[in-house]
């Protein structure tokens, strides 16, 4: 891997089997890990966009801090008995 000095844009080389390796700092900044899936978009200007594919279930888990207390389910259900 080589990096350009000024812009600090990482560069990678495509090997004979069309594979690339992402630089460690890119992996870290993008919060990627082995086994993650990436969607690939080739744009009209020739740029390629890699986007981490996120599981909607994983996005749901833990996404709403405090919602249990704010909802107070038991009180809601007890209202039906009034």
């Amino acid at each position: 891997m080589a990096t350009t000095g000024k812009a600090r844009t990482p560069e990678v080389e495509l090997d004979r089997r069309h594979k690339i390796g992402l630089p460690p700092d890119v992996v870290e900044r993008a919060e990627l890990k082995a086994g993650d899936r990436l969607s690939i978009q080739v744009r009209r200007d020739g740029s390629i966009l890699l986007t981490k594919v996120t599981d909607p279930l994983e996005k749901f888990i833990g996404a709403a801090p405090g919602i249990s207390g704010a909802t107070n389910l038991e009180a809601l259900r007890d209202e039906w008995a009034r």
Partner: protein
Amino acid sequence: MGAVVVLDSSVLLSLWDPDDPRHAVAASAIRDLRVARARFVVPSLVLAEVLVGAARQGEGMIRLRLAQLRAAFGEPHPIDTKIGMAAARLRGAHGSIRTPDALVIAAAQVIGADEVLTTDRRWEQVEHRVRVLAG
């Protein structure tokens, strides 16, 4: 295709809220079911309950939470006449059960679900397919 699993509001709220005391147990159970290719069903009554907290924060928050819920579990299942009748039978047979509890359990009966996940221990006495998540 894996098991069909009806989710109660109590489980969804525990799953959604990282500060909920049952969050870890709910997350573990749901992840295990996902790996086993379970199909999750969220009755529309459950939707109405779990969005109450979001509703208090405004329309934008309701839309956000609804989008998260749909993306994770699909379109909520409507409470129809058959489910209403099954809930009435449950209420008739078990005097102590509340109407919303009966509607969720009835949805599982009518759909033919393999399991109903809840954190409410009282449901165990009403329906054999109830699994209580304790944490």
